[in-house]
């Protein structure tokens, strides 16, 4: 190393040390700036559904809290293998609150939360018990599904309706149980066909299979199909266009985001307000009221519901009053909506 370079290096180091040592002008004066990070589910931003809803919650918090928070959102790779790395990255950078969107985060958040006890975590759709720095944000999907099931049964003219699920897991079976319960509650003799696209995460991104499954159900006489299958459901909508039948969307108000020709076939969507859950959690945390444990978002908390918009208003109008009445009964606890197969059987046995 030449003498010139040595001097240059020494000067650089000295400058760096000085800069680091002198506190920034505002740093001391400012109140705490909360740093909030989100790691999305497979699919990332622009899925027009689950992840975009989470982003909407984050964006709302950013807008309302302004300079009080600083946000960052990250997308895992297509297969989602680097979920844990991204969580660790945010934790290492001293984020205060970190969201994992989707049940697939269950294992990685459990591990990372143990390693970073001072960071607060929130998982959407996943259940992590007994960790002082993790809150599990769960939805009562069965309640929203109950309402769209009732809507489907009331609107069906063939007496047959269908369900297309993504990956066959308890989470998606919750949608199915609620849907069937709602349909049979308002029309005991309705027939419900139920199919799943698969048993791996791939089952949420196979629109080709979704279309074939839906076509099969339409061929068997179903005239309305509810999908809870992520990207696979785009195929269900496409099948509805081909057969000129109806379909029900999920998670977001899908009437707003699909192609115009599919829009006319969407009766309604079962909204799962991930945005509400994300926003509420951020707000509570910044107010110093973060609470670990489990939070449930049902009809009562406005966490689930059915979508009404300009496109489906005319279609849904005839059953809206009935749906509102059912909603009231569920909130009041008069109807206990089943959330799995066993409860569903018990529920159906009580119907006369």
């Amino acid at each position, binding site marked *: 190393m030449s003498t010139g370079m040595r001097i240059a290096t020494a000067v650089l180091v000295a400058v760096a040390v000085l800069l680091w040592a002198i506190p920034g002008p505002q740093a001391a004066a400012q109140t705490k700036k909360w740093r909030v990070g989100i790691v999305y589910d497979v*699919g990332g931003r*622009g899925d027009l559904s689950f992840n975009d809803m989470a982003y909407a919650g984050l964006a709302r918090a950013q807008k309302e809290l302004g300079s009080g928070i600083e946000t960052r959102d990250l997308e895992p790779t297509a297969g989602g293998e680097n979920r844990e790395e991204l969580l660790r990255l945010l934790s290492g950078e001293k984020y205060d609150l970190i969201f994992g969107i989707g049940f697939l985060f269950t294992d990685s958040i459990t591990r990372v939360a143990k390693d970073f006890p001072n960071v607060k975590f929130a998982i959407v759709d996943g259940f992590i018990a007994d960790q002082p720095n993790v809150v599990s944000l769960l939805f009562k999907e069965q309640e929203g599904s109950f309402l769209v099931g009732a809507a489907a049964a009331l609107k069906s003219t063939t007496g047959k309706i269908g369900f297309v699920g993504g990956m066959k897991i308890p989470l998606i079976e919750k949608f199915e149980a609620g849907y069937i319960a709602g349909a049979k509650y308002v029309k005991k003799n309705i027939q419900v066909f139920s199919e799943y696209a698969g048993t791996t995460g791939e089952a949420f*991104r*196979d629109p080709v299979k979704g279309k*074939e*499954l839906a076509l*099969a159900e339409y061929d068997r006489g179903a005239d309305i199909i509810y999908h809870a299958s992520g*990207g696979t459901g785009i195929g269900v909508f496409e099948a509805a266009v081909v057969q000129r039948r109806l379909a029900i969307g999920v998670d977001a108000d899908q009437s707003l985001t699909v192609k115009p020709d*599919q829009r006319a076939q969407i009766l309604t969507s079962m909204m799962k307000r991930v945005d509400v859950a994300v926003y509420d959690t951020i707000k509570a945390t910044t107010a110093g009221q973060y609470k670990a444990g489990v939070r449930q978002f049902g009809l009562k908390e406005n966490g689930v519901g059915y979508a009404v918009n300009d496109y489906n208003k005319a279609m849904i109008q005839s059953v809206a009053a009935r749906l509102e009445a059912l909603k009231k009964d569920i909130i009041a606890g008069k109807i206990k909506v089943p959330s799995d197969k066993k409860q569903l059987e018990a529920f159906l046995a009580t119907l006369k």
Partner: protein
Amino acid sequence: MEYMTSLFSVALLASAIRVTMPILLASLGAVHAERGGVVNIGLEGIMIMGTFFGAVGAYAFDTRFPSLAQTWPNLAPLAGVLAAVAAGLLFGLIHALVTITFRVDQIISGVALNLLAGGLARFLNILLFEKATQSPGVRGFTPIDIPLLRDLPALRPLVTGVSPMIITGVVLVAVSQWVLRRTRFGLRLRAVGEYPLAADTLGVNVYHLRYAGVLLSGALAGMAGAYLAIEQARLYFEGMTQGRGFIALAAMIFGNWWPVGALGASALFGYFDALSLRVVRLPVPYQFINVLPHIVTILVLAGFVRRARMPAADGVPYTKEEE
């Protein structure tokens, strides 16, 4: 008894044909590459490119030339297919350049293509549409009702609303079979895959023919992707190929490296796939049905069912003797 009748319902057959198509097109491509002596396991990646560029092409045409697309509704999907084929050719060219000219291991090049395609599709999708995993929706070809047959009520689900790409695919099988069996190009391509040195001494340009075989495989796999995106899902969605490119390779082996064989094998895969989606009460769990074609493929490869005869120089890079 109910399941016996549903096993051969026309609606099931129609579904089977739709599911068969992408596998068939890609495995036709594989036949051409391997007949010339180049293994192309990059088919899956090329299909991904096909799905992406198929959707991009159709969408771009629709938005750039709305009046043209309105007057001739088939133009936009056609533009999509052409874009997908072009992307397939480009990827085929990369594979050919790397494996034929530079004699890199063909498996490694194929794996690289598969990895590249997945990342590239996501990158371009974010660049063009500002979201990671799906393109905007596109329009498909106007479906065709097959004349005469469409008047038979029993066949209606099978012969009405047929995608023109399905008809194209079936025609391509016949053409490929004829080309490989009867034409000068086909015979030379096969010679190059069997015994390149002999072909070379007779004045056949081994490199040119192998390039042609690989380029054809790229074009056909691109078309397979376009079929998925334009005709089935009507958009590009990340991961929508679901490993069909690899199944196409299995179909090629099962079909003994012949186009007609590939048709039979793909149809078998497609039929079992559709069966598991459609028939409600099967005598065995549907997972068994799903693995059946793959087991048969392994048995074929192992020589239990019948001898698989792969081209003798398949997968072996050819080096011209030093002058």
